[in-house]
């Protein structure tokens, strides 16, 4: 396992109250896989992703353990975390402008990562920056090295951000909604590029998203997060094609629009995801769950093995039934 997360919790103090955003989650990520964390707004998916890279907000309180290549990441001093980000862990975001400096040529920024980590001298670093831009299929990389971020197109910026994240040769890439702001045809290019880079550079990828189309394409394993707790975790095919947790099934139904006869009502769940500090008792999904019974309101479902997946649900959908859900 390249990454082991155990009983990880993160929260904030607000007006003297402890508000827990992610509440004791555990999972492993194997080397070389694409591990996708699915969740809606407020599920804690980005907080989890950022904490793996040691980038949780400084005001947050954390507990549990995040071990990356046998190093404990939580409560590690900032200076040491900085040394890991780049050579060990690369990060990409939805908005490339949040990681690119607007007043610095693109190539210099990539070169600087290498110089800062002592991986190359200035001249060597510049050469490798051009190679990196070539690697992310930027046509005319020499021109782009000396361009400022605003001088290149959105798609090129996205590629430059990926080049920067991967320049120092990390083994783990954390991608937080990397395609959310992109048009479908550009999104498709990004996904193909990530798949190619993953193969070429033997990357492990943790992808955080709420886009089921993206998940369908790239996921090896999936973790479904709901209101700071794990609903379901397991192989992508089981989770997408035969969801056992009613919440996952609902997410997939909205993604299965193309399978529903035109103009027919979709199998939507009611309500919205609860906000921080307003998580319901028992199973946190129970107020929206079509299968909820009394025990769901009172007792938090323990995590258990169910077929090919692990889930936290008192009344999961049996495999034969979930196929029906998928067809309906």
């Amino acid at each position: 396992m390249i990454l082991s997360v155990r009983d990880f919790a993160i929260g904030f103090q607000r007006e003297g109250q402890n508000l827990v955003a992610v509440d004791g989650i555990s999972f492993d990520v194997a080397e070389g896989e694409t591990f996708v964390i699915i969740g809606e707004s407020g599920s804690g998916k980005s907080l989890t992703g950022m904490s793996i890279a040691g980038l949780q907000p400084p005001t947050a309180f954390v507990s549990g353990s995040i071990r990356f290549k046998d190093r404990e990441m939580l409560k590690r001093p900032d200076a040491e975390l900085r040394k890991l980000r780049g050579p060990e862990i690369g990060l990409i975001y939805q908005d490339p402008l949040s990681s690119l400096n607007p007043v610095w040529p693109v190539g210099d920024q990539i070169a600087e990562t290498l110089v800062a980590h002592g991986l190359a001298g200035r001249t060597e670093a510049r050469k490798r920056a051009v190679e990196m831009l070539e690697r992310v299929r930027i046509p005319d990389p020499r021109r782009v090295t000396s361009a400022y971020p605003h001088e290149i197109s959105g798609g090129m910026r996205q590629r430059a951000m990926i080049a920067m994240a991967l320049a120092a040769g990390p083994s783990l890439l954390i991608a937080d909604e990397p395609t959310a702001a992109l048009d479908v045809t550009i999104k498709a290019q990004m996904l193909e590029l990530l798949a190619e880079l993953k193969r070429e550079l033997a990357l492990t990828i943790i992808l955080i998203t709420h886009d089921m189309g993206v998940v369908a394409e790239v996921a090896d394993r999936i973790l479904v997060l709901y209101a700071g707790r794990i609903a379901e975790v397991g192989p992508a095919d089981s989770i997408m094609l035969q969801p056992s947790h009613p919440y996952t099934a609902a997410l997939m139904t909205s993604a299965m629009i193309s399978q529903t006869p035109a103009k027919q009502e979709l199998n939507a769940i009611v309500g919205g995801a609860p906000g921080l500090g307003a998580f319901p008792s028992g199973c946190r999904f129970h107020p929206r769950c079509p299968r909820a019974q009394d025990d769901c309101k009172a007792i938090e479902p323990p995590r258990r093995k169910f077929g090919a997946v692990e889930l936290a649900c008192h009344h999961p959908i049996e495999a034969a039934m979930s196929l029906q859900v998928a067809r309906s």
Partner: protein
Amino acid sequence: MALLELDAVSKTFSQRRGGRAVQAVAGVSVAVGKGETLGLVGESGCGKSTLARLALKLVDVTDGRVRFDGIDVTGFASRRMLPIRRRLQAVFQDPLASLNARMTIAEVMREPFDTHGVKLGAGLEARIRELLSFVGLENIDIQKLPGQFSGGQLQRIAIARALALEPEIIVADEPTSALDPSIQAQIVNLMLQIQRKRGISYLIISHDLDVIGHVADRIAVMYLGTIIEQGTADTIMQRPLHPYTQALLSAAPTLAARRQVGWKRIMLTGDPPNPADVPSGCRFHPRCHLARDICREKVPPLRAMPGTGQMVACHLAPEETARAGAEVGRARRGLAAAS
């Protein structure tokens, strides 16, 4: 007769500081019939949102005519538009941005009645309650501000407000794009219910092909300010004939496509086009894998295909594109490729 008709409309924006003029919409004709849903798809910068604003008369056309229920409203100033506006309402992508953040929900809901001089007196609050409950918001506190509601609730409020004066058509620009997936399905259902109960028409603009394919009767695909393909939702989703439509449909894999071994997409190279720099001939040719001399030289007209009534602007359709289109349609539905 069509309820809303855009007849060869164009919109040119002149850039400040003497920059080049940008033609965002270039000679587009679309019509929405009574009770019908027209879906308009395209990527950023294709002009679809400008087209929505032309339809709503929020901006004036540079060329062409806009007709509502047979009335030519092209030159109508806002005072003459007022009675038309009652019948033609809008819903936008980000409800928090489109509702005034300092107004309570009661004030937000009351505004359309005030604007159009509809006096309900003591009946106003009951009417507001009725509208909100129609969109599934029975017990909300209408003295609260928009910021105190979730995105899904706000989109319902925006829809309730649009319905206040019982319009005949709603122009919805990316109505589900800013919402979480479980909320998107709710809003899709709500829009379908409204149509079933009230026989309303929709012009829905979106980049989300799944949503458009599900709710629309007919679909028009825009590229760089022009319509490149138009037809019934079934033909566009199952047998697209324009290489761009095919690329769009195959770019976003469905869950069904995942089940197939060897599923492959039609990949577009290059960046989305720039409306300030329109290519010669077919506007799509620099990104088209089929492009040849005629495509670089001659603008393909939008022409009807025999039999289906599908309209396509491609020199090579249907002869060289039909097979690929059928494959794309099958893959989306999770069917294996035809041998």
